[in-house]
């Protein structure tokens, strides 16, 4: 079977077409077209939708909704999403960022998917035609997910409340040794009142660092204050081993990089 592309004006029609065996949704092409080029013969039909809402970014009242077809470049260049620019620009080189979509990033296996790490820290929700799912649940079930992701929504954290770090061997563009995103809220006295920390490469998909989050509550961002969080950073992680680094290395340097991110 040759590869064939079908384009639909609505997500609804595209969803219906996706039921056919061997069909995959085409976002920016960085995952699916690559797989086909590399001889993945399980992909025989590509489906896409040109519904305009898929490409929209809506920021209103502190809430953000980003259509699934929005590219990393569009996020990186959006005037109201400046705080996310670092995470969006962490994905690939310029050409990849002009193609790779936020929807696709949700499905990218580690060490890819750095932006999904940011979305996890932002406690985003992932929408399809039918449902709206917390991102953590979505990521856990993504392998069996068939419905087209239409958008991702989240609440903008307060100014300076979002931190992101990607560690790569190759600069400025390399895939992750690990990535860390954190959304922190501080009480007037500087103590942490809320902490959401997400990790990339510490499992086969983005994961929360719950023990570290907990250990930060009520503490200040000082060397002593973060010590317990760093000690707990690895809890529940199962880092990947790949050509970039071993699980051992990732586990060893996670607290180091988390410390640098928190104390920066």
């Amino acid at each position: 079977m040759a590869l064939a592309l079908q384009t639909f004006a609505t997500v609804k029609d595209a969803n219906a077409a996706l039921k056919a065996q061997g069909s995959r949704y085409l976002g920016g092409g960085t995952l699916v077209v690559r797989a086909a080029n590399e001889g993945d013969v399980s992909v025989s039909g590509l489906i896409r939708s040109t519904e305009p809402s898929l490409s929209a970014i809506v920021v209103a009242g502190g809430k953000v909704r980003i259509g699934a077809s929005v590219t990393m470049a569009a996020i990186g260049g959006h005037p109201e999403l400046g705080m996310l620019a670092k995470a969006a620009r962490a994905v690939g080189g310029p050409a990849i960022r002009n193609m790779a979509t936020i929807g696709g990033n949700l499905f990218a296996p580690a060490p890819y998917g750095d932006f999904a790490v940011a979305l996890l820290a932002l406690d985003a929700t992932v929408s399809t035609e039918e449902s709206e799912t917390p991102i953590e649940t979505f990521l856990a079930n993504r392998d069996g997910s068939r419905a087209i992701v239409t958008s991702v929504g989240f609440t903008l954290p307060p100014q300076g409340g979002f931190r992101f770090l990607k560690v790569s061997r190759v600069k400025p563009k390399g895939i992750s040794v690990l990535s860390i995103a954190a959304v922190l809220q501080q009480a007037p006295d500087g103590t942490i009142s809320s902490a959401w920390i997400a990790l990339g490469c510490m499992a086969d998909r983005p994961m929360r660092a719950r023990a570290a989050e907990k250990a930060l509550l009520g503490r200040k961002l000082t060397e002593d204050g973060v010590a317990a969080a760093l000690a707990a950073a690895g809890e529940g992680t199962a880092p990947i081993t790949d050509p970039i680094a071993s699980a051992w290395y990732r586990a060893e340097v996670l607290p180091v990089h988390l410390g640098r991110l928190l104390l920066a």
Partner: protein
Amino acid sequence: MELRKNYFADVRKDDLHEIGQPRPRSDSPGHVTGKTAFFADRTFPGMLHLKMVRSPHHHARIRSIDTSEAEKHPGVVKILTAKDVPHNVYTILILIQVGPEDETVLADGKVRWKGEAVVAVLAETERAAQEAAAKVKVDYEVLPAVFDMEEALKPGAPLVNEYHGQNYYLYDSGECRKVRFGDVEAGFAGADHVLEQSYQSSPIEHAPTETTGCVVTPEGNDRFTCYTNTQAMFFTLDNTSIILQMPGSKLHFVGGTVGGGFGGKVDVIVEPIAILGAKLTGRPVCFIYSREEEMQISSPRAAEKVVIKDGVMKDGRIVARKVTGYTDAGAYSRHSPYGAQKGAGHYPGPYTIPNVWIDTYCVYTNRTPSSAMRGFGVTIGDFALEVQMDKLARLIGMDPLEFRFINAYRDGDMKAHRQPTEGAALIECMQEASRAANWPVAEKYLAMSSYVKGA
């Protein structure tokens, strides 16, 4: 870049017209306009795409190959197995009498590394070839494999390659290439310090931006034109002639514009099977490595292990050096026996040492065959030698750069392989490095010269 003309001015004529001039490159205008024709920039009507079915096992016996389903796949034109290749067992250096023939173009009865070519599929499109390749059924009996050179050299290790009969290349000098100069044991006995250290590398890929490949077209007169990015035109033509049992006069190779080589395109892998495909189908054929094939299937630089034992005096003289080098050839020879032998000629490095013992082994393991790469036989050896030099200097409390001056070879010094040194320039390089890096050394070293001892 800075040319330091003050060095060796007495032996050099600098009044040339064209030599020494920074003339613009004649090929660059083609590069910047995208007009330069690389081999894959030629396409022919009716061209078939060749995809290889590869071994998923490191070492296995092939019980059977079933291509019936693949043959029926739409778009498939021809499927090739070992029996289709006229002279299927070959080795590239046979042209310079380095044998035995030890490698199959397409696996025959056995695979010896994960990724080895087993069946070639020729189809109308790349996609059809990929789909049909997935339908080829090969029944394997998995055999024990060996990956570690030391394990491979132990008695009872799985035999990697029957054409050799043992897991090392047999030189005319025996299990290794040897150099014996002076009395190395006496040197160690008389040394103030003896230091033995072991160094290791792993395989390295050339990673040219253009992958290995060729496009072949039948000329209609029983000749075949092969557009290729080989690094060696006649080397490839002559080996193809042997493998296909086809007179060289039937073969026309066109190349010479290559998107990076670094030694990775000296093997003869894609051309013979693509030409065979063109011959048996009468159609143009392209066989271009995917990036994954370039990374994991094409020969890498061999992994090497180098053990160096040195005897050194407190005054900085190295009095004895014993080097044992192991080159991980993978499953087949390709250029590795040559590389290991090149190491024997290179050690003990650019230093004058009175007692030297060198053994270099070419070892077979069940991994991707290694071959030529920029500096092979020397690159990893230089890493080992120069880290060892640093350790020796620190052992005797001497500046590492000064330590090298003491031992540097100079014109007339006898090398371990019994050639007198000519044209040495190590000392001058180190003198200039001392200046450029602001790494001061004693005046006496700055006064040295490669020309004559004691000067």
